[in-house]
């Protein structure tokens, strides 16, 4: 049996000391071990950014491609050889700024790749400009007085694009991250996994309330399919959905079974969860849907081909002797 370490390449890891990317790399390689991935069948594709350095560190095939284009590269690989295990690594700038279009098309086509979106709400590699996920008012190198843009919500965007699997996890909760990554790989089709990742150099503490052990239980809701949505250090609070309003209720007053029961298969509920961008946010699998996988569909539709000789013979031909 391989362990996580067996999936590390011989290359020196070069993220900043303390960067959240280290943990994601670790959980990723452990998941590879867990699912018994064959390194020679595994391909890790990334765009450009700090996160996108990850393929270099993984003992597998990999490509550090172009900024924003990894979904298209991965689509090409899957069309070339559907049986490869392709993973996609991207950042919030890579996936949602320059790469937004390829991302939404990969999602709606349901190309069979888990997409690990390292969201640190900043451009790390280019040294700290605000990103499409940066909250309004973000002070960054390019917005010293605070940004004015309304941020992209990766979850509603992906849902609106027709994604078949949506999840969220974080660098600082290894067990949860591993679980979500394994689930994303098990899903047939595109799986968007947003990972809250701390950039301790340019945007330290962006997700502290969700990741810090002290505050986590008050802000992070861990979803479980078929179970009531509850949170709190003592699991003493729950959510209910009233029309379009998400409300917090005390479980001292109501029983858990009266709460909103998480149903991964319910798109409306998924949308309600995806819209939670304030101090209370869901983690885990927000949504899941079964839909044929693109590359399989394409190959199926192209089964009925003609040999070169037959193609030559098509149409009106004549012979001179």
């Amino acid at each position, binding site marked *: 049996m391989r362990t996580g370490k067996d999936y590390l390449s011989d290359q020196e890891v070069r993220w900043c000391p303390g960067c959240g990317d280290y943990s994601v790399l670790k959980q990723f390689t452990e998941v590879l071990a867990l699912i018994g991935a064959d390194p020679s069948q595994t391909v890790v594709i990334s765009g450009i950014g700090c996160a996108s350095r990850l393929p270099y560190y993984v003992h597998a095939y990999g490509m550090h491609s172009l900024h924003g284009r990894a979904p298209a*590269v991965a689509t*090409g*690989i899957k069309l070339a050889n559907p049986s*490869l295990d392709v993973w996609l690594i991207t950042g919030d700038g890579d996936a949602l700024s320059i790469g937004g279009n*390829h991302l939404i*098309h990969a999602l709606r086509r349901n190309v069979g790749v888990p997409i690990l979106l390292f969201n640190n709400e900043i451009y790390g590699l280019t040294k700290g400009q605000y990103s499409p996920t940066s909250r309004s008012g973000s002070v960054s190198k390019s917005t010293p007085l605070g940004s004015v843009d309304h941020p992209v919500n990766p979850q509603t965007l992906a849902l609106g694009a027709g994604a078949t699997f949506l999840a969220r996890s974080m660098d600082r909760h290894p067990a949860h991250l591993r679980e979500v990554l394994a689930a994303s790989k098990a899903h047939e089709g595109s799986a968007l996994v947003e990972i809250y990742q701390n950039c301790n150099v340019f945007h330290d503490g962006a997700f502290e309330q969700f990741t810090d052990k002290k505050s986590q239980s008050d802000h992070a809701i861990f979803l479980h399919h078929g179970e009531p949505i509850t949170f709190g250090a003592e699991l003493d609070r729950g959510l209910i959905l009233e029309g379009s309003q998400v409300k917090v209720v005390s479980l001292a007053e109501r029983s858990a079974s009266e709460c909103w029961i998480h149903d991964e298969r319910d798109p409306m509920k998924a949308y309600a969860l995806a819209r939670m961008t304030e101090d209370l946010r869901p983690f885990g699998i927000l949504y899941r849907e079964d839909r044929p996988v693109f590359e399989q569909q394409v190959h199926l539709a192209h089964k009925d*081909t003609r*040999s070169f000789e037959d193609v030559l013979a098509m149409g009106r031909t004549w012979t*001179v002797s």
Partner: protein
Amino acid sequence: MTKVLSHLVVLMAGDSGDGIQLLGSQLIRAAAQSGQDVRTLSDFPAEIRAPQGTISGVSGFQFQMASEAIFDPGDAADVFVAFNVAGWIKHQHKLKSGGLLLASIDGFDARSKAIAGVDANEDPLEQAKSNFQVLEVDFKKITSEALKDQSLSGKEKSRAKNMTILGLLTWLYGQSAPAMEADLQRQFQGDLGAANVLAFRAGYHLGETAEWTAYKREVPQRKALPGTYKTLSGSQAMALGLAAVARQLGRQVLYAGYPITPASDILHELARIRPAGVLPFQAEDEIASITAAIGASYAGNLGATASSGPGISLKGEGLGLAVMMELPLLVINVQRGGPSTGLPTKMEQSDLLQALYGRHGEAPMPVMAIKRTGEALDDVLLAAKMAVESMTPVMLLSDAYIANSAEPFRLPDPEQMRRIEAPKSDIHRAPYARDAHGVRPWIIPGTPEGMHRVGGLETEDQTGHVSYDPKNHQSMIQQRAAKVQAVTRFYGPLCVEVGESKGEVLLIGWGSTYGAIRTAVENLRDQGHSITHLHLKHLFPLHPEVISFMTGFSQVVVAEMNEGQLVQVLRSQTQQDLHFLGKTSGQPFTASELQARIVPYISAS
């Protein structure tokens, strides 16, 4: 007695709804099949359905048929078939003085004149009579009479006018009526097929009835090379080429395209013929198509893509990545009029310098050009061979003219086609270790123990790891360049098209101007001039002998459909004085135009 001609040029023009392209392709297939050589030139309106009857809505189709090998659709027309007044007005200057104008007078009525913007008092047909022989025929009426018992709508009946004209032309130019009828029946089923045949017959008999034997012309058969033929456009031939690549490489070709005129026809043709081993994929844009193709090549397919104009400009970043990673990739540029959206349906050769230099950094890659439909299949094979066997992206230039122009195409014997041998997925060599030709192995995901990473950052020699080392960078730039230079091993000897290897004038061209240049040079040689035609297939790296070959001539003229691109490249490599002969009007060179423009250089030498 029917007059016998070695060459006949027919131009048909009318509304884009008149079915002229169909008529034309029907006729030339028959001609080709009966042994004449043919070349065509289509001219479409830019609009999908341009306003009926207007000048901008004119669709044109010209062909030349000949009893010997020809290379272009001819210059001035012997015969002009005018479906309407707009078509005549737009192209009348192309009819030879004394030539035959066959006018469908239903398209010359008051309403047609008004729409075409012709003054009501003018009578273009009357005017034409002073210069041309004019036959006025009411094809609409003839057609509707022929079809009066058919259960078709009025619109469908009037659409069959092209079949009536086809019938007349078939009779005039000695093609076989039964063969044509059979062909029509194969294509159009049911009522429509029957109606088309009726209309065709009406036209065929018209000549006889009207006693137009004086207008009949016969173009004798030539001795074509033995083989099986079909008529193909350049786009179709390129699609066949991709099919051939899949066969010869023994691996899937992922063809990732995004619709754009005139490149889209390759995608359509692939989707239509469905050749084994070629997977067509319509991506969300041109960047996605080239990067998906790159992904496919990494995974062991040959990634291919094609585009035109703006779409090619979007592929520069992807090309650079393929250069850096050293992956095979085939990019076809079906050039059109630029800059920007430009003239999407017109031909031009103005993307050469972009093909050579349109990437940041030192990013050389081989660039080839197709000179005619008949070679398109083999050129695609050669480009793919260079890409795969040298692990490099290759740019293959075509253009709107080749894409659309049809000619009799001799089908290759699959067993005789070029072979392509992919570099082995050899895990015992480092991913960027080079062989004698500077080529790295193509280690494909899925290969046990071959795991390695590739990317756009500078690559360490041998290992392919990221390297910021200055010496490595300089060395890798040079290694990549040397590898690309080494593709000249795939070139054959430098061959002239016609002429001697020393002499007075050397006329150099590339790409689709081949037919016009070759015809012009042959004509000039017939007139006794010392002139040679050299046509470059390889634009980068140049054939190693080109520069020294030029020194054998006192005048070297470079003719191209741009403002001087190849000539600039050649000038940078020689101290010889080179002349330039260009055109950027979206219309191809004609042989006579070239002849006239070359004359000054002939007298100068």
